[in-house]
C-alpha cells in the first residue's frame, strides 16, 4: 500500500525532471522518456487506487463513500487522480497532433496533480512530516526551475542581442 503511493509520487516527480534535464544537458532524446514515465506514473496511481479500493477497503462502498466525503486527504488524492486520467488518454501521438498547442496546456495539469499528490501525502502522515516535505521540496525545486527558465527565455527575447 505505502510503496505504491510513494512510487506514484516518485514517478510523477521523475517525469517532471525530464524537461529540466533536457534543457540542462541539451540531450533531446531524453524527451522520449517523458511520456513513458508519465504513463508509468499513471499506472502506479491506478494500482495505488485499486489497492485501496480492493485490498484495503475490500469494495466496502459505504466505507469508501465515507472516506471520500469525510477525509480531505482522500479528496485531494482523488482530484489528483482524476486530473491524470485525461492526460493518460491524450498521451498518444495522434492525440498530440490533433490537440496541437492545446495539448501543452492540458498536460500542464500534471503540475496540479503532482502538487495534489504531495499535499495528499503530507496530510495523510501521522506525525513525521519530514518525508512528505522532502517530496514537496523536490516539487517546488522543479517548478522553481521552470519559472526561472521561462523568465530567462522571456528576457532573452526582449533584450536585443548585441554581438
Amino acid at each position: 500500500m505505502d510503496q505504491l503511493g510513494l512510487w506514484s509520487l516518485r514517478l510523477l516527480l521523475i517525469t517532471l525532471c525530464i524537461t529540466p534535464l533536457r534543457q540542462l544537458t541539451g540531450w533531446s532524446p531524453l524527451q522520449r522518456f517523458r511520456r513513458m514515465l508519465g504513463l508509468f506514473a499513471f499506472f502506479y496511481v491506478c494500482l495505488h487506487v485499486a489497492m485501496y479500493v480492493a485490498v484495503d477497503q475490500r469494495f466496502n462502498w459505504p466505507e469508501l463513500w465515507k472516506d471520500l466525503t469525510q477525509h480531505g486527504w482522500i479528496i485531494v488524492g482523488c482530484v489528483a487522480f482524476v486530473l491524470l486520467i485525461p492526460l493518460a488518454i491524450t498521451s498518444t501521438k495522434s492525440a498530440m497532433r490533433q490537440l496541437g498547442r492545446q495539448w501543452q496546456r492540458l498536460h500542464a495539469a500534471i503540475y496540479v496533480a503532482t502538487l495534489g499528490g504531495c499535499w495528499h501525502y503530507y496530510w495523510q502522515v501521522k506525525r513525521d512530516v519530514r518525508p512528505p516535505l522532502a517530496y514537496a521540496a523536490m516539487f517546488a525545486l522543479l517548478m522553481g526551475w521552470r519559472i526561472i527558465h521561462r523568465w530567462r527565455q522571456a528576457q532573452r527575447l526582449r533584450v536585443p542581442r548585441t554581438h
Partner: protein
Amino acid sequence: MRHRPRPLTEQHVTPESLYLTRRHLISGLLGTGIGLAVGDAHASLPTGAVLHAAHNAAMSVSAPPNSWDDITTYNNYYEFGTDKSDPAQYAGSLRVTPWTVTIGGEADITGPVSLDDLLKPHALEERIYRLRCVEAWSMVIPWVGIPLGEVLRRFKPRSNAKYVRFTTLNDPTQMPGERSSILHWPYTEGLRLDEAMHPLSLLAVGLYGRSLPNQNGAPLRLVVPWKYGFKSIKAIVGIEFVEREPRSAWSQANPKEYGFYANVNPAVDHPRWSQASERHIGGGLFAPRQPTLPFNGYAEQVADLYRGMDLRRQF
C-alpha cells in the same frame, strides 16, 4: 480472576514448533511496489534468552499468534525511526543491561529499583493478547510478563495517587530517533490507577517465551490490550504515582487525534480514518478486514471501568 502461578510443566510452555507452523505471506510489497506475494520460505526462529513462563490460558485469546517475524519487524517505535522497519534495524543500539526503573510520586516506597529486583517476587506468565494499533492494523501477540497491578501494590501507593505515569528512556545516543523532535521526548504515558490495577494490564519482559527484542520495548514495557498500541509504552525507566491526569506523548502531540484514554472504539473514528475495522497483519494481501471490537474485544472485562463516561468525548 487473579492468576495463581502453576508449576511449570512442558505442556504449559507453548512449543516453538507450534508457533512456527503458520506460513506467513507477504511482509510487504517489495522494491517498486509490485513484488510478488510469496510466502517467505525461511521464517526466522525466535531468538533471545529463554524465559520460564506459565501459560495463562484464562487471560489469553485463542486466536493464533502472529509470527515472530511479523511481531519483530513491523513496529511503531519512533525512538528508533518512523518507518515500521526502523526499530528492527536500529534498536540494536539500546543497552538493556543493567536497567533501572525509578519509582516515584505518591507511594510509600520510592526510589530506583534494578529490573531484577522489580521482577524477582513475581512469576512470569505468558498471555496471548490482541494488539490494535491506532493506525487500524492488528496482531495477536504472545507476551511474557507480570501483572502490573501486583507490581504497583508492592510500592504501596497512597490514597491520593489517582494515576500512574510511565516514562521511556531518554537517551539519543541509544535512541537515535530522539534526536528529531517528532514527539516530545521522553515518551510518557499514563493510566488511571484503576486501569493500571486491572488484571489485564501487563508489564511485559518477553515474547514467544524469549526475552523481549529491543524493537518490541525491551527490557520492560507496558501492555494494555484494550487500548490503542501507543498507550503500551516501551523501555520504561520511570513509574510515578500522581494525583492528576499525566501527559501522554501522543495526546500532547495532537490532542484532537489522540486522547488520554485511547480505548479501542470502533464507534469513534480517528479524524482522518475509520476505526470501524482493522487490517490483520500477516493475513496476506487478500484477507478480509476484520471488524474492530469495542475495547479490542475486552469489553466484558474492562467496560465497567468507564461506566458513566462519554467515550466519544473522552476518547
